[in-house]
């Protein structure tokens, strides 16, 4: 019962960049879907998003180090908060990765802790082999208090799906 759909209201504001909603007619250009948002979404819909659509929701850069890499790196991407606001959803969510890893992200991480959906490193899209295309990171360099195991665990890479609870 997977359906592709384009969010109606977003056509007004985002035009071509509007996310597709399942159950809606699939567009001509078949840019790959990199993230699916479902669960407690208004109308019970499932939202599929391409990289372009995600970045259109509020692209920002974040310079930070990660526990898995050496030295600070220049990431590009969208704050989780921007994504959720852009989609009009809120709440805790279960994040799932392509490698079958999943972890629960509390809503406050988006609101308070600056959870960030990294899509680019040094301006280049993150490849799958480099924890792409979407890597949920935190501003560890700015906020050292987040450099703790629970946040490390929530830093899910190869993110594919967010199920809002």
């Amino acid at each position, binding site marked *: 019962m997977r359906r592709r759909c384009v969010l109606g209201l977003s056509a007004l504001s985002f035009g071509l960049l509007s996310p597709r909603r399942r159950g809606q007619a699939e567009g001509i250009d078949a840019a790959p879907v990199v993230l699916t948002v479902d669960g407690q979404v208004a109308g019970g819909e499932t939202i599929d998003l391409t990289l372009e659509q995600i970045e259109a929701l509020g692209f920002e850069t974040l310079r930070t180090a990660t526990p898995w890499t050496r030295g600070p790196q220049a990431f590009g991407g969208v704050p989780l908060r921007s994504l959720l606001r852009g989609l009009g959803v809120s709440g805790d969510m279960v994040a799932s990765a392509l490698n079958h890893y999943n972890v629960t992200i509390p809503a406050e991480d988006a609101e308070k802790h600056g959870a960030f959906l990294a899509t680019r490193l040094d301006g280049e899209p993150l490849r*799958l082999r*480099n924890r792409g295309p979407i890597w949920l990171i935190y501003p560890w360099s700015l906020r050292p208090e987040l450099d703790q195991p629970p946040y490390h665990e929530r830093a899910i890479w190869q993110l594919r799906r967010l199920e809002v609870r």
Partner: protein
Amino acid sequence: MTPRRLRALLAGRRGALFKLGLGGAALLFCLSIAASGLHLTTQSELEARVQRTSVWTASQMLVELSEFEAVLRGVQLGTESPARMWQQFEILYSRMKSIDPPDDRIPQDEMDRLRDQAPLLMAELDEIERDLQAMLAGSVAAGGRVDRRLAEMKLLLRHANVRIHQQRNALAQQALANLGTGQTVFLACTLGLMVSAGLLILLLLAESARARWLLAQSRAAAEQLSQAEGTLRILIDNLPALICATDAAGRCLFVNEAYAGFHGLEPGRVGPDLCDGPQAGLLMRALAAEGPLPFVEGAAIDHRGRSRTLLSTAVSVAGAGGERRRVVFIAFDITHRKAAENRIRHLAEHDPLTDLPNRTLFKTRLRAALAPVDGERGGEGMGAFWPFALHSIDLDGFKAVNDSHGHPVGDELLLAVAARMAACLAPEDMLARIGGDEFAVIQARVAGAAEALALSGRLIAAAQEPFHIGGLPIRIGASIGTVLAPGQGWRDETLLRRSDMALYEAKAAGRGQAVLFRPEMEEAVLDERLLTSEVVAALRQEALFLVFQPKYRIGGAEPIGCEALLRWNHPVRGAVPPGRFVPLAEAAGHAAALARHVLRHACRQAAAWRREGQEMPVAVNLSASLFATTEAVELVREALAESGLPHRLLEVELTESIFIRDAERARETLAGLRALGVRVALDDFGTGYAALGYLQSLRFDTLKIDRVFIQALGSGRPDSTAIVAAILALARALGAEAVAEGVETEAQLAALAALGCDAVQGYLLGRPMPAPALAARFRAAALRP
């Protein structure tokens, strides 16, 4: 050791103990913390290692490799899309890559080995990627290579996985064990903490107890100090002395109540400073002196203006600051004592009746008058002094006034005489009452005898003027002996003795005389003194001897008895009459010795005669002075016992004068003598004592009629015969024998015979003679037919 000393010792070491304990506790505490910390670090490190160990990574790698194999298999079979295969390859690639950057923060032994192989694995993956592309392009060989490479990689990962698992298990075991020892260490640390905390608490408690003890000690000490101070203050305030303390400058620091009371200061007020005034000198001397100054008597005025006498001293004491000295003034108000002393002295030195100086003060003044005047020393070792006259005064007829008018009148008279005599004197002269009616005058600054005699004349005239006492006209007189100093003596005793000699002379010369001392007076006295010493020596040397005068019955030729009479032949003066030497010996205190001598020799002689066959009683004269005691009886008993003379052969002769001295004692002595069985004769009867009352109660064996009456006999005077007749009648009436003394003529003898007298004694019949002569006379009479 007493608890007190132990406590003191502990208190001394307490500080060190406390510090040591505190240090120990702190060290223990730190060690516990450090041990806990170290252990916790180790534990967390271990746990981290377990956590961090990429078991999950390794397993995931193997899983993803297997998944990729499955997808690859699907692609080879045409059931899976190549995109799906690439995605899975990418995931595997990223997994391999994740071990690529070696994380040197955490040592992961087995993982490190895997990590070392990471470049090889990545290179292998790159080969696989190229072979995959070749395989998709249709190369079967490439597909085979991929399978082979994957199999090798799988084997490698599986081995690594097994090792990592083993390591993880070992670490987990170690962590578990560590946790076990950790519990022990933790317990030990906790115990250490508890012990150190307990030790600290104990130390704190001990320290606080010690602090409380010290506080109590110091409070007690302060209390004691304050009590002592209070006690001292009360003591000082209640001392009957005036006490005031000042600093060295004389500023008053303290006064006690007595001082405040004397100076009228309000209570609690400090007195005025003593910088000047009479005490300033005392202050300076006290500061200069070591120890207290000697007490000084001085006059002071109290705040009520009364004159007081103070006995004061001052002493300087070192103040708290060492050099800062203080001076304490102490004074006793001795006003009352002085007054009492003066009163007592006055009483001791004055006659209570006339308030004139008494003998004591008179002698003091006399000595003072004889003290040499300063700076005027004369020759011959004698100090020069102002010449003066000493008058000894005795009132004539005063005793009679006292006897006839009574003592009150006598006292009045003495006061009046004293007042009159005092009026004759110059202010510097002195009148003193020496005895009952004896006075003395020191007449100051007398130029010569005439001036002295002029005063004594005035004094006699004043005494002779009639007095009117209680309405009675009274006449008395005065005799005065005068001596001049220093012309007639310069020692007080000499002057007094010489003035008394002159007075004696004046009395002897008749009343109302003033006699100036003459050296001859003293010669007579000196002669008497010499004779006294000679008679005492003669008595001691048995140079006094007895003669015996016989007594006869009238008409009888044989002596009926004799009277023993004492004789002394002086080697120079010849025979000295007993009337001269006996009083001298008795006055010198030898009456008893004299009597013993006479009694002993008389008794011996009588006993000797008796042995020769002549029983002749012997009569011995005993001095009246011996009858004042019972000595006479003892002497008689002693002489009789010694000689063995029958008591009836001894007769004791005594005079009426014994009844004048002490009649009662005389009676007792007489009774004692009569009880011995000796005869008692009353000598000189009729001349001594007017009253005859004693004759009623006393019995005498013999009455000896005084020679005065006998001498009158035969002179033709009828009254003399009447008296002798009356005495003889009285003797007969009393049952006593009458003996007439001093019979010197035949006429007297005849008259006595006519009157019926029993016995006679006298020169006519026999003079006193030595014992052999008397014995011869006795024998001659016995031979007469």
